[in-house]
């Protein structure tokens, strides 16, 4: 069984290596990924945002909603840990009283 798995993984690796020879070069301006939105974002960063760091411009300006959501996710994670793991200072007696009231 292990040999079958090994053979399968070797075949998969060979397939992926063969497929990667067909990928465009790194930072090729004519690659499909760089032809659709990148030129527009580059121009907008230069003309409107005027900061040197294009990543920050995309992260905080063009995709501000996205970053807002990410901040909410992190905040919610902290909130969940606080709610679940926060030590209650109530003694069991207090909790019984609170339950009665």
């Amino acid at each position, binding site marked *: 069984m292990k040999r079958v798995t090994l053979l399968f993984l070797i075949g998969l690796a060979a397939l992926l290596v063969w497929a990667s020879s067909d990928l465009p070069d790194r930072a090729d301006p004519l690659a499909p990924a760089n032809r659709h939105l990148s030129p527009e974002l580059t121009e907008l960063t230069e003309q409107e945002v005027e900061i040197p*760091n294009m990543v920050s411009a995309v992260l905080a300006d063009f995709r501000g909603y996205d970053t807002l959501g990410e901040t909410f996710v992190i*905040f919610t*994670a902290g909130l969940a840990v606080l709610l679940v793991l926060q030590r209650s200072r109530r003694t069991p007696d207090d909790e019984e009283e609170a339950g009665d009231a």
Partner: protein
Amino acid sequence: MHDRYDSVILHFAARAFMVPLIVVFGIYVLLHGESSPGGGFQAGAIVAAAFVLARLTLGNRHGGRSLPMWLLTVLACAGLGIYMFGGILPLLLGGNFLDYGVIPVEWYNQFAGEPKTSRAAGIFIIEWGVFLGVASVLVILYDHLTDAESDD
């Protein structure tokens, strides 16, 4: 969980060099987020690492004294609040939500050595929000997952 480690070398290295250095570097990464690789998320993680280092060397109870749990909670909420402020401020000034183009920067550019655009100012505001949120939430996670004494 962690008690204080009684090693002079460890305390000296951590408290005299590492923690201040890491905090200053984190603030640098935050302030340079617009002009070089960096930004709120990275700076938050770096500064949180400094406070986690203080807790690792001094123990949770002593190391957490400078930044208690109630303050961390307030800072996490303040981070999100600053981000929302950066989004709502353009809304009040007549623009769209998170559309920084209408933020007034003329008053700042009068005495600034390097003039800022409105959009750079907006990005700066929300980077601070992200920074505070990420840094305090990471320290909150560490404190609670290592079972710190919470003193709120």
